[in-house]
């Protein structure tokens, strides 16, 4: 039997049983809609979480151990020797130093190059951390340098990519400051600061002088509420203010593959250092929670699809029994057992395809509705996504494919039943 003939006859049969066709299509539609909706939701929320916690799965942050018996027994300060030893660990591609600045820096004037309504007398303490250029090299704007500048030159800094969002959604509303426009190019912005000045009483250094920070780029490898400067700048400032450098605050290890993380972390601990799970652990826990919830919902949707397949199986079995004589007539006209089996399967496939297409459409519309409701009713918190869903093209194919496959699976038994009909007995 040719495909065109098969589709023609299957369509006629489905049209003749409108009620059954509508019910079966609805069953397939519900399963496909639920599956596509929940998978899209899981992917969308996962994407939103990645924006909120953009941890690089290949990075681990090494910090001095909480308890140390001295370098002789391992651990101790994270000095240059320790950095070299960490760099030699298997799987480590880079070891990048971080050193927190212990000299206070404060900004009491608006950055230059951007229109802001800086309140009079408003001073912001600027947390600063020194980092190796290698850690943020890929985030530097072309032509920008990230090394300790000569005296009087602006100090290059990098800010967290998320700072603008946090500023616009929390800092600006709280302090009545003007929000910065979305997509603004902040690179090159210069911030006038006072080195040595602290807003905390008795913490201001004896020597206070004016300097400028120049934004050289934005990076996910910079802590959210800090500015990153070259580690050499921090060491210079520490020397200027007589601060001792007993060791680095932390060392970031960049590994070849995420799979290397557990073994590298274990090796770090054996050396007597600790691993700061911090944001990475939160990101992993959030990611795991999203994966588990999305997986459970997708499983529920698959269960609904399986139930749809059962409903289709039951409905088609009843339909085949009711059409025993009709099927026998087709056999008397030349239909083979294979033709009869194919006909029942084709009817199921058409129902599954129609249900799948309808289900995908409903899922997409429902997602748009949820997004619209979220936009209207949820507060404008930082990193609030514009959509909670992701619909890659393969997801549409998955919805239709799973629906059609489930319908076909449900039709296997009824198709076999139909193919076993004895035409002579059924007609007489």
């Amino acid at each position: 039997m040719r495909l065109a003939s098969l589709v023609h006859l299957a369509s006629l049969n489905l049209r003749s049983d409108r009620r059954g066709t509508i019910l079966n299509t609805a069953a397939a539609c519900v399963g496909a809609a639920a599956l596509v909706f929940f998978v899209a939701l899981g992917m969308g929320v996962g994407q939103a979480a990645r924006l909120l916690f953009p941890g690089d799965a290949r990075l681990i942050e090494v910090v001095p151990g909480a308890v140390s018996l001295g370098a002789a027994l391992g651990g101790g300060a994270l000095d240059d020797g320790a950095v070299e030893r960490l760099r030699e660990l298997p799987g480590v591609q880079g070891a990048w130093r971080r050193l927190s600045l212990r000299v206070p820096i404060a900004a009491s004037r608006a950055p230059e190059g951007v229109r802001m309504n800086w309140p009079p007398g408003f001073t912001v303490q600027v947390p600063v951390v020194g980092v190796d250029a290698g850690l943020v090299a890929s985030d530097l704007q072309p032509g920008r340098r990230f090394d300790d500048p000569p005296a009087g030159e602006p100090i290059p800094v990098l800010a967290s990519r998320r700072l603008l969002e946090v500023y616009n959604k929390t800092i600006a509303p709280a302090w009545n400051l003007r929000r910065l426009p979305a997509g603004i190019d902040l690179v090159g912005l210069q911030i006038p600061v006072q080195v040595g000045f602290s807003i905390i009483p008795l913490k201001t250094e004896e020597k206070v002088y004016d300097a400028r920070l120049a934004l050289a780029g934005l990076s996910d490898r910079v802590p959210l509420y800090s500015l990153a400067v070259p580690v050499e700048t921090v060491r210079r400032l520490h020397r200027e203010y007589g601060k001792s450098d007993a060791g680095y605050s932390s060392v970031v290890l960049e590994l070849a593959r995420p799979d290397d993380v557990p073994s590298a972390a274990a090796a770090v601990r054996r050396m007597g250092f600790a691993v700061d799970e911090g944001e990475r652990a939160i990101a992993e826990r959030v990611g795991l929670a999203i994966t588990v919830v999305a997986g459970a919902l997708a499983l529920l949707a698959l269960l609904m699809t399986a139930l749809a397949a059962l409903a289709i199986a039951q409905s088609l079995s009843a339909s085949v029994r009711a059409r025993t004589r009709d099927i026998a007539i087709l056999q008397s006209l030349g239909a083979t057992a294979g033709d009869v089996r194919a006909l029942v399967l084709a009817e199921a496939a058409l129902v599954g395809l129609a249900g799948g297409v309808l289900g995908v459409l409903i899922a997409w519309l429902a997602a748009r509705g949820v997004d619209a409701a979220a936009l209207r009713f949820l507060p404008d918190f930082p990193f609030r996504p514009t959509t909670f869903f992701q619909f890659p093209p393969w997801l549409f194919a998955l919805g239709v494919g799973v629906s059609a496959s489930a319908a076909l699976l449900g039709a296997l038994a009824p198709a076999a039943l139909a193919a076993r009909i004895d035409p002579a007995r059924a007609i007489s």
Partner: protein
Amino acid sequence: MISLRHITKCFRDGEREVVVLRDLDLDVAAGAFTAVVGPSGSGKSTLLYVAGGLDADYEGEAVVAGRDLRALSARERAAFRNVSVGFVFQSFNLLPALPAVENTMLPGLFAPPGVPAPSIGQLRIRAMEALDRVGLADKASRLPAHLSGGERQRVAIARALLSRPAVLLADEPTGNLDAVSGEAVIQLFSAMVRDGVTVLVVTHEERVSAAAGRVLHLEEGRLR
């Protein structure tokens, strides 16, 4: 055209075995109009099902339209039913949900491999021609429920003619028809015989057997 030799067909009714056809022999020449008459339950329909390749569970030898039916596989028997024979039943056996033209098209949808399969459009044209031949072109879009008994039987005949079979097997074709409709059906059979089709009718109606060139009596599973 039809050659049945030593056909024996039994049914099992619980513990009891019922012999319906007993060592039956039948020869029908090509282009003949033959009627088999007999009382209800005499095995007339079973005889047709054997000759038409619908029933393969029998003893003996059946050669119809040059095909040895015992030697055919189930798939080949289906092709034989599609190409070589046409069936007409007492209860019309039209699919109730399909309009007359779609019912008439049905055999064309099952064209076996090796037989040129027409497109759906070509098939519709051929079905309309077949309906025109039985005088029902104007009722092609009607469902069987909206046709009279005689019209339904003419649709069934149009369907049987679609594949231009060599043999037409009719099982009580006028059993549910009034005198006028029955006469029209008999006239159609006679016209088909003139066109070279071999017609084998089983009936218990005198008006049908009177139109046939040869009448055989089926009694106790044997033809006399």
